[in-house]
């Protein structure tokens, strides 16, 4: 899922000619955050690769 979202973000940021940050957080049935830290998308880091 993360990979697909990151590809989506890459594409959208590229289209807008911007570099940005995004985070993905997962919540369980009780509304509690599951991933201790949100999955962070960093456009600058992605560009380096």
């Amino acid at each position, binding site marked *: *899922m993360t990979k697909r*979202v990151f590809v989506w973000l890459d594409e959208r940021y590229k289209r807008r000619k911007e570099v*940005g940050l995004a*985070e993905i*957080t*997962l919540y*369980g049935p009780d509304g509690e955050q599951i991933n201790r830290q949100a999955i962070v998308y960093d456009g600058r880091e992605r560009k380096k690769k």
Partner: protein
Amino acid sequence: MEFWMDKVGELAAGLTGFEEEIDSCLHIVAISSNLPGEGMVSLYLNNLPDDRRVMVHDVGSPIIRDALLRRGFVLEHGYSQYLNKNCDNYIREGLPTPDFSKHFTAEVRFDEFTFRDLPQSDRDSLREVLSASPIITATVINDKPRDVELDEQYFALHGNPRPRGGLHGGLGESVYIYLAGAALIASRKAIEKNY
């Protein structure tokens, strides 16, 4: 068919007996402790699975009966296919396995500078990407950057703006004031020198 008594063996450390799982039901037909009074039976009962049906056949010992009742078992007088007779069996139904796949939510949040004007078509396509995951059933696209949300939460709780860190607030402001003061004094001294 092999007789169950021929399969009696070690149930757990210090315990001899027979158990068998058939169609998601664990049948316990015999339990005997090799070290009576050491709590081996209690330990075994504590570790019984709770995600499937457990049936303890023909429980005669009052101590084991009480131990089973304390652990959520219910007495049911009925036929035991192992013992081929009607007897007192203790049964505990398995807890339903929660279907976590129906309750997972993914939240996507962007930074302050981008995607505040994310068009509906893009929102829909992002939702589509997220919902392709077998575990995600709900998607939230949060337009508020984390800082803005924290500001709002702080204001709602304390009634005043959230203090800023770094050079843009808190100690940073005093640094700016100090630098401005020093510049003012220096410029005054420079003016005095010229005269």
